[in-house]
Every structure is written in structure tokens, then in C-alpha cells.
């Protein structure tokens, strides 16, 4: 009953946070507590509905084949008969979106709850909550979209909110620049996505996902394979930036400038996974184009490895997490690239929990250490702030992929499908990444939470509003993976692309090897960072491979490259255009004007004031006219000569 209602009014889920946003902006802003309450309350209610809807979807299987779609006309262009474009906004509920719906709202709720404690006393308290609500709203809108354009709109709104939230401490230059960077980077990619969407409209004449998928399925009626390839690649450009894939990942680590809950929200549950989600949604398109699939897979695998190699040398706690996010997103892309919606979504699902957990944990640490971010300056926090530390450790186990924690199952799934797909190189890369992941994440843990305490730090455990979410998420990080264990893979029966491919026999080899890899990574971290107190080995290594170390520590200088390009190429050409405008285009205009004036002056001088000059001009005029008459008139010339004779 209530479930039915939730199913057919799923648009309430994004609507509620949106309303919260409006109320806060226009009414509740002056009262922080009220604003927080409205925001969290709205989010919680939304979460409640989302849960019901998700339950509804998961309980009857028809939706796995035929998604529940209801839409309303938003805009029509043209008349029937002529090239017409109708754009609907609506809700499309199938297991994938239902899962996302639940996940996003659930995590968002706890992050908001957490923020109540984290942001206490901030001047922009209520504004912050209004932004959070808007952010959640747009993300949820994106999730339930039944129309590609609607999705794009939500996509851009998410971008806007990230801009606002990253730049929340707008008095900090760094925050301002990071926000701008995030927006512009995404903009660059959206350009590709937009082109892709335009191409799809023009080729297939619709943007409704369901119709689109049907028409794409037999695309040869509409267009050629080449076009399809182009379209697929264009569409994939968008996610590259949003989900921080190489080479457009640069904005993501800088996004740490925002308040930590924002980082959690952005990196765990919402913004970055939007890209993965979009690729998942559009898998029907990529599926038609093997090239695009390979592109996705390779990008994913490479990004995963690439980011991991950066993460191992970073010092700031949030940066490490950020790069781990990039790397995990790489996993998801890889999974989708090898054609397994199941694995990709599954990893997204588990990742959401443990990554949110770790960010919030990091936030709690920073909160305690008054925003001292360098892990080398921490240590032994476990004694002073046990909850934070232990939950963080759980997160660490999860991401490293230690069974039976959530991360293990999803990552294992990915490795398995990669292997089954016969992409051995990619498998190797992914496996190695897994090792690195375990290593750098535990490096962080050992450095920050274990070892001897630093006297200058006076950490303290955070308030309950911050701890409760930690605990809840930690519980999640432990358990949510069990949905997709090879023994009873419920997940694979819900969320899949094509037909539910369910590997009958359990790939023990892969499973064991990934577990071993994870343990190895952790052990290495242990030996390097915990066992030898002086960290001599590490320093020795860093010295030994100085160039590599710098390369990794400076993120392969990619930001510098972009900066250089922006300043020399873009700004340079801008200057060029401007000068051209002033001196050439405008110069011509002014030149003409000046010519008019000059000729005026020139003619003026003829007016000498001498009477007889005037008389002379008069008669010259007469002569001139006479000549004109002779030659301008039709037959006069001959006539005159004849007449004279």
C-alpha cells in the first residue's frame, strides 16, 4: 500500500530535499538549528520513501525486465509531421535506479546528520545545509531520470552544487580556485557529453531512455556503425570528468577544499558515481560498440592503477582518500567496460559505504586535530578517539578487500569478470592496483592511528552526531557486501545488463589470490610504517627512487600541464583575439570615420572666401556639366560633333 504509493510517487524523493532547500533559503536561513532540522528531516523522509520504493522494486521481479516509467511532457518543439522534438521529465524505476535511490538518500542522510556536528558554529551553517539539500536533490533527480536530457540537467545541477560546496569557504583563494577548476573541468567533458546527446537526438529522435535503448538496439535502421562509435565515445567523455577518470581527474583531489562532509558526499555517494551511473545507464549504447567498451575498460583500469601509484606517496589524509576514490572509480569503469553492470554497480554500492565512512572518519580526525591534515604529523589516535579509529580500520579492511568485508566481494567480482572476459592485462593491472590500494590505505592507517602519539596533538573523540553515522556506515561497510557473495548472488539477479549472467562455479582462484594480494599489501605497509619506528626503510626507498617518488608525489605534473595550457594557449589566444578586435576590426571602423572627417576638412579649404574663385568654380561647373551632358546622355556625343560640322 504505502509501497505502492512510494513506487508511483518516486519523484517525491528528489522533491523533498529540493523543498528543504527552498524553505531554508527563503525562510529558515536566520535560524541555523531550524535549517539543519529541516534539511536532515527532509532528507530522512526522502530516504524513507526511497527505501519503500526500492523495496517495492526489489520485491516484484517484473521491474527488472520492464522498468516502471512514468513521465510528463516538459517541452515540445515543432508540430507533428515536421521534425518534432518532445522532451519529457519522468521517473524510471528499475533495480539499478532503485538501488542508487536508496544508497544516495541513505548515505546523504547520515552525512547531513554528521554535518550538524561538524559544521557547528560556522557562519554559513544554514546556507551549507541548503546547498547539501540541493545537492542531494539534484543527485536523486539524476538517478530517477527517465530521459537523457533530464539526466543531463540534473548532471549539471550536481556540478553547480559541487561548485558551490567546494567553494564554500569562499574567502580562501584555494577553495575558490578549486571550485572553479571542478566546474570548468566538468564543463569541458560535458561539452563532449552534450555533443553525444545532440547526436543521439538527431539520429534517434528521442531522449527517453527506454525508447532510446530500443532504437539503439537496432541502430542500423537509423545510422551507421561509425556514427554509433562516435556517439558512444562522445557520451563517455562526460563521465570521464565527472567520475574523475584519467586525464580529467585533476579536479577531484582539489575538491578536498570543501568541508569534509562535502568531500564525503561528493566522493562516496553522489557526484563521482554519477559518471559511472550514466555509463551504466547507457550501457545499451556502449554494448553495441565494442571499441567503446574497450575504451571504457582500459580507461578504468589505467585510472585505477595510475591513481593508486599517486596515492602511495601523498601526505594529506584527504588527498590519499581522494586518489583512492579515483582509483576505485577506475575499478567500476573497468567492470562496466568488460560488460558487467552487476560488478560495476556492486562495487559502487559497497564503495559508497566504506568510502563515506572513511571520509567522515577523516573529517572527525581533522575536526579533532584542528585541520592538521598531514598523516605524518598524526599518530596513535586510536587511544584518544577509539570510535573514529576502529570504524576507520573497518573501512580500511573493506577497501583493502579483506574477506568478509564489503569491498572484498565487489572487488573480487570485478576481478572475476575481467578474467572471464579474457582481459588478462587488465586483470593484472587491477590486481596490482588492489595490492597498492591495500598498501597505501594501511600506510595511512598505521601512520595516523597507530605508532606513538605526537605530543603536540590533543585529539578528542567527536560528538555523537558525528559518531553515529560512523558506526552505522561501519556496520554497512562490514555487511553490505554479503548481498553479492558468490554463494547466493542476489545482487546479480537484480542488477544486470542483458541476461543475468551468473557464473555457476565459484572462481576460488581469483578469490583467494585477491585476498592474498590484499594481505600482502597490508603486511608491506605494516613492515614499512609500523614495525620500524624510524621509517628508515621508507626514507631509503624514497631516496633510492627519488625521480619516481617525485613523479608520484607531484601527481605526474598533470595539473602543471593543464595550468600551462590554460595560461599560454587559452589566455594567449584570448589576448590575441582582443588585440585583433581593437586594432583591426575597430581600426577599420575608426579609419572610415576619420576618412569622412578628413575629406570634410579638405573640401572645406576650397571655400576660400574669394568671390572670384567662386565664380571660377561656377563656370568650371558649367563646363563640367556640359561635358557630362555630352557623354552621359544617350546619343548626344555623335549629335554634337555632327552639329558642329
Amino acid at each position, binding site marked *: 500500500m504505502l509501497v505502492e504509493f512510494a513506487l508511483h510517487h518516486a519523484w517525491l524523493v528528489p522533491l523533498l530535499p529540493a523543498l528543504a532547500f527552498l524553505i531554508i533559503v527563503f525562510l529558515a536561513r536566520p535560524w541555523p538549528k531550524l535549517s539543519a532540522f529541516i534539511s536532515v528531516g527532509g532528507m530522512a523522509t526522502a530516504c524513507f520513501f526511497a527505501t519503500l520504493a526500492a523495496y517495492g522494486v526489489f520485491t516484484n521481479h517484473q521491474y527488472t525486465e520492464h522498468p516502471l516509467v512514468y513521465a510528463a511532457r516538459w517541452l515540445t*518543439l515543432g508540430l507533428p509531421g515536421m521534425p518534432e522534438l518532445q522532451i519529457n521529465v519522468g521517473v524510471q524505476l528499475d533495480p539499478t535506479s532503485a538501488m542508487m535511490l536508496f544508497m544516495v538518500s541513505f548515505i546523504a542522510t547520515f552525512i547531513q546528520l554528521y554535518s550538524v556536528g561538524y559544521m557547528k558554529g560556522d557562519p554559513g551553517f544554514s546556507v551549507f545545509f541548503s546547498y547539501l539539500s540541493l545537492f542531494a536533490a539534484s543527485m536523486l533527480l539524476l538517478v530517477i531520470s527517465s530521459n537523457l536530457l533530464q539526466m*543531463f540537467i540534473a548532471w549539471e545541477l550536481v556540478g*553547480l552544487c559541487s561548485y558551490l560546496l567546494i*567553494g564554500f569557504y569562499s574567502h580562501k583563494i584555494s577553495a575558490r580556485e578549486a571550485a572553479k577548476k571542478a566546474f*570548468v573541468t566538468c564543463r569541458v567533458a560535458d*561539452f563532449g557529453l552534450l555533443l553525444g546527446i*545532440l547526436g543521439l537526438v538527431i539520429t534517434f529522435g528521442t531522449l527517453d531512455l527506454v525508447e532510446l535503448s530500443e532504437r539503439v538496439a537496432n541502430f542500423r535502421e537509423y545510422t551507421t556503425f561509425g556514427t554509433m562509435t562516435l556517439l558512444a565515445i562522445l557520451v563517455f567523455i562526460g563521465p570521464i570528468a565527472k567520475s574523475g577518470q584519467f586525464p580529467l581527474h585533476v579536479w577531484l583531489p582539489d575538491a578536498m577544499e570543501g568541508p569534509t562532509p562535502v568531500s564525503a558526499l561528493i566522493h562516496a555517494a553522489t557526484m563521482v558515481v554519477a559518471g559511472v551511473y550514466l555509463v551504466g545507464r547507457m550501457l545499451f549504447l556502449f554494448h553495441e560498440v565494442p571499441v567503446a567498451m574497450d575504451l571504457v575498460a582500459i580507461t578504468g583500469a589505467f585510472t585505477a592503477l595510475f591513481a593508486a601509484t599517486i596515492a602511495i606517496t601523498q601526505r594529506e589524509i584527504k588527498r590519499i582518500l581522494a586518489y583512492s576514490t579515483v582509483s576505485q572509480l577506475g575499478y567500476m569503469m573497468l567492470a562496466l567496460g568488460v560488460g558487467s553492470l552487476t560488478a560495476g554497480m556492486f562495487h559502487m554500492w559497497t564503495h559508497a559505504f566504506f568510502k563515506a565512512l572513511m571520509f567522515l572518519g577523516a573529517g572527525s580526525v581533522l575536526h579533532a586535530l584542528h585541520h592538521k591534515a598531514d598523516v605524518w604529523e598524526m599518530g596513535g589516535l586510536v587511544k584518544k578517539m577509539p570510535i573514529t579509529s576502529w570504524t576507520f580500520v573497518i573501512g580500511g579492511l573493506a577497501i583493502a578487500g579483506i574477506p568478509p568485508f564489503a569491498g572484498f566481494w565487489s572487488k573480487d567480482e570485478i576481478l572475476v569478470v575481467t578474467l572471464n572476459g579474457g582481459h588478462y592485462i587488465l586483470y593484472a593491472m587491477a590486481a596490482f592496483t588492489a595490492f597498492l590500494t591495500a598498501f597505501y590505505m594501511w600506510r595511512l592507517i598505521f601512520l595516523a592511528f597507530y605508532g606513538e602519539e605526537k605530543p603536540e596533538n590533543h585529539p578528542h573523540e567527536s560528538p555523537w552526531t558525528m559518531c553515529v553515522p560512523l558506526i552505522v556506515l561501519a556496520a554497512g561497510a562490514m555487511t553490505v557486501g554479503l548481498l553479492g557473495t558468490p554463494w547466493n548472488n542476489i545482487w546479480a539477479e537484480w542488477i544486470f545488463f542483458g541476461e543475468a549472467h551468473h557464473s555457476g562455479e565459484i572462481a576460488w582462484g581469483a578469490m583467494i589470490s585477491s585476498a592474498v594480494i590484499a594481505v600482502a599489501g597490508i603486511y608491506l605497509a605494516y613492515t614499512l610504517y609500523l614495525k620500524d619506528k624510524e621509517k628508515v626503510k621508507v626514507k631509503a626507498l624514497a631516496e633510492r627512487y627519488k625521480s619516481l617518488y617525485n613523479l608520484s608525489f607531484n601527481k605526474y605534473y598533470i595539473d602543471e600541464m593543464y595550468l600551462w595550457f590554460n595560461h599560454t594557449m587559452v589566455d594567449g589566444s584570448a589576448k590575441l*583575439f582582443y588585440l585583433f578586435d581593437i586594432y583591426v576590426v575597430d581600426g577599420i571602423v575608426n579609419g572610415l570615420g576619420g576618412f569622412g572627417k578628413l575629406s570634410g576638412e579638405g573640401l572645406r579649404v576650397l571655400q576660400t572666401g574669394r568671390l572670384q574663385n567662386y565664380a571660377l568654380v561656377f563656370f568650371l561647373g558649367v563646363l563640367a556639366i556640359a561635358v557630362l551632358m555630352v557623354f552621359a546622355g544617350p546619343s548626344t556625343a555623335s549629335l554634337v560633333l555632327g552639329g558642329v560640322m
Partner: protein
Amino acid sequence: MSFPVLPVILLAPLAAALVLVFVPKDEHKLIKSVAAIGTFVSMALSFYVYFGYDQTLGGLQYVIRHDWIQDLGVTFFLAVDGISLPMLLLTNLIGFSAIFASWNIGTRPREFFILLLVLITGVMGTFIAHDLFIFLLFYEVVVIPIYIMVVIWGSSKRVTKEYAAMKLTIYLLIGSGFLLVGVIALFTKSISILGAPDMSFSALAIAGSQLSAFDQKWLFALLLFGFGSLISMWPFHSWSPDGYAGAPTAVSMIHAGVLKKIGGYGLIKVAVVTLPVGAHFWAPWMAVLGIAGVAYAAFGALAQKDLKYVVGYSSVSHMGYVMIAVACLDVIGLNGAVANMFAHGVMAALFFSMIGFIYEKTHTRWIPDMGGLAHQTPKLAVGFMMAAMASLGLPGLISFMPEFTIFVSAFDNYGGLAVIGIAGIIITALYVLRAGANTLFGPPRTEYDHLEDIKGVELVPLVVLGTVLVVGGLLPSLLFDMINSGVVPLHAEISNVLQLGGNL
């Protein structure tokens, strides 16, 4: 139509201006209120007309028609259709906000508001006149008031206001000179076709479409130059940034907001409809110039340090999109063109009003001299950012759907060429965000701590235009259905001619 609503809309500001003539020149409050009332009447009535217009019926409605000049076949012909109505509404929205944007005018306010009201009337007239002669009457009414307003109340930055004003005026007048030649030639030709002189748009459309392909081509070229220079089509745009920089806020608002749009409007309602073959011939050129304008002006804006120049160039770039859209000559494109003119109007007006306030308070528009204003004047910052976001075509704000529709049709018709144009959104995002960030964000400057945020009537532009910005973004059908009802029949005419008169 018992109640002559259009004449009332047209004359309300003029009446207010007349009243102002008799108001003592130092009754500032009174003067401003009178002006506000005059424009408010027009705005309210044009809302009434907008929502009273029967879209299913379509065509010309609220028609007023009287004989005017017999031997030229001129009739005093006021009416609205799906294309002119949004423009009318836009004019009044901006006009009304412009009054409040210039609320703090201290010097010679009476003259200022009289001129402003005349200006608004003139612009309105062009949009509701459906007789070419009357259209032209209103077309240039506006030029002189603008000149006087710029030289008296303008500001000299890179160029002196006198230079800017003269450039703007003469440039547009020369453009209209060419336009006039075209119109007169078209008129004389139409007489021989129609048998009797008739200057109504509809009659000229009938006559014009029967002209030989050659005639249509050169006539269209003239009209294109005339209207093109008004819509600041590249490379005839250079009056625009200087002009806006020199002009007082209200003038910038109206000029960038609506006056420019007369160019696009005329291009669609007069040039394209009357000379479809010519339009078809020149369309590729229009597209190229449009694209050039988009990219070129976007880069130009990127190089600016003066806020008004940024917006000035950006408006050139946005008008480039309109040119492309018109060049597509299909339903979606024309829809996009008109819608984009409306959207850009609202956005640019909001932008200029906010910049006006910033200039008023900080006495500078030089971006490096600013920063962190968001902390001292949050409301101002909100308005500014809304305009900025609209200008980079953020979904949920009014200018996204128009741009999207334009892209659809441009991509469809001009493929690769359009891609360059669409790439403009990146540069746009770059310069808009840069300007916004460097002005509003970053560490607050102590010298601006004394500034007080916009308040009271100063909020009117933000509220009015901001509301339109958001509502139009969330419910674009409010705008598009109206426009569509006007574009579809118009396009039907064109395509008929193009199919029949295959003499391309």
C-alpha cells in the same frame, strides 16, 4: 477587441514621460515613482496579453489597424503573435527593472527618466508593429535618446563616453541606412507585384517571395547587414562592447536586453519571411558569421578586465548563437533563436543591473580591484551569480533550453561547424566563472567593508528578472509553446516558398 490593449501598453510609458515634463525637476522621488508606474502598467498589461493570447488559434491577435498613409499603403497596424509577444513581455520586464536599476540617479533625473521612457516606448513599438513602415518609425526612435543618455550619464573607461556613444549611434544608423535602401527597393518592387502599395508584413511577404532569386539575394544581403549590425553580428559588432561600457546601467540593460533583439526579430519577421530564397542563399554565411561571432567574442570576453566589457563581449557571443539558429531556417532553430533572444535579454539585463550596482557602490568595474564582495554584499552576489550561471547556460535557468534547441538544430544542419560554436560554452564558463570568482569570492577587502547590500527597491531587478530566470528555466514550455505557435506557421510559409520557387 473592445479594449485597445496594445495602444495602451505602447502609450503608457509615453504618457508617464509627458507627465514628467510637468513635474518639477527636483521632485526626485515623485519623478521616479511616475516612471515606475508608467512602466508597471505596460508590464502588467503585457503579462495579461501574454497569458490571454490563444495559442491554439495562433496568428495575429489583439489586432489594431487603421489607414495611415494611403499612397504608401501604410496602415497603423499593431498586433502580436507568438514571436512578438515574448519580445514585448521581455521589453516591459526589462524596462520596469531598468527604472529601479537607475533608482539612485542623482543628476538631472527628470530628463533621464523621460528619455528612458521614450526609449522603452520605441522598443515596444518595433515589436508590436506589423507594418514595415511603422516598424521603421519605431526602429530608429530609440537611437537618439540613447545617444543623449550615454553622453550625459555614461562613464568613460577604455574609451570616452562621447566616442562610445557616437560610435554606437552612427554605426547603427549606417546599418539602418543600408536596411532602408533594401526596404525601399523591396517596397517599390512589391508595388508592381501586388498592384497596389501595401506595407504590412503579410503583404510584403507575399510579394517578396515572388521576386526573382537574384533580387531576393541582394535585397536580403542589405537587410542582413542592417539587422545584423544591430544584433552585433560579427564582424559588425565592435560598437557593442564599447557602447555598453560607456552607457549608464539602464541603457546597457535595455540595449543589450531588448534593443539588440530587434535585429534578430527583424531578421526573422521581415528578412527571412519576405525573402526566403535570399535567406536560403545567405544562410551558410550567416551561420559562419554566427559561429565566428560566438568563438571570437568568447575569447574576447576572456581577455577583459572590465566587468561591463566582459558582458558586452559575451552578449556578442550569445547573439552569435541566434545567428546560427536563424541560419538553420527550421522550426527548432527558429524556436531556439527567439527563445534565446528572450533568455539572453533577461540574463544580460540582470547582469548589467548587478554590475551597475557594483559600480555604484565600489566606483570601479575593474575586476582586479575587486574580490570577496560576496561577504559584504551577499544579495548582490546572488544576483550576479544567477546571471553568470544563466550566461553559461546552466540547466534549470532560462538560457539552457534555448541554447540546447539551437544546438540541436545547428548540429543537425551544420554538423562540424556547429561543434565550434558549441565549444563556446567552455570558454563562456571560463570567463564567466573567472569574472564572478574574482569579483565576489576570495578574501574580502577591507576597503569595501562599509558597503551595504542592495536593499529595498534596489532589489526589484533581482527579484523580477531572477524570478523569470528560474521559472523560465524550470518550465520552459511557458516560453516555448508561445514561440512555437508563432514559428510554425512562419516556417510553413518559408518552406512552401522554398519548395515552389525552386529557382535557388
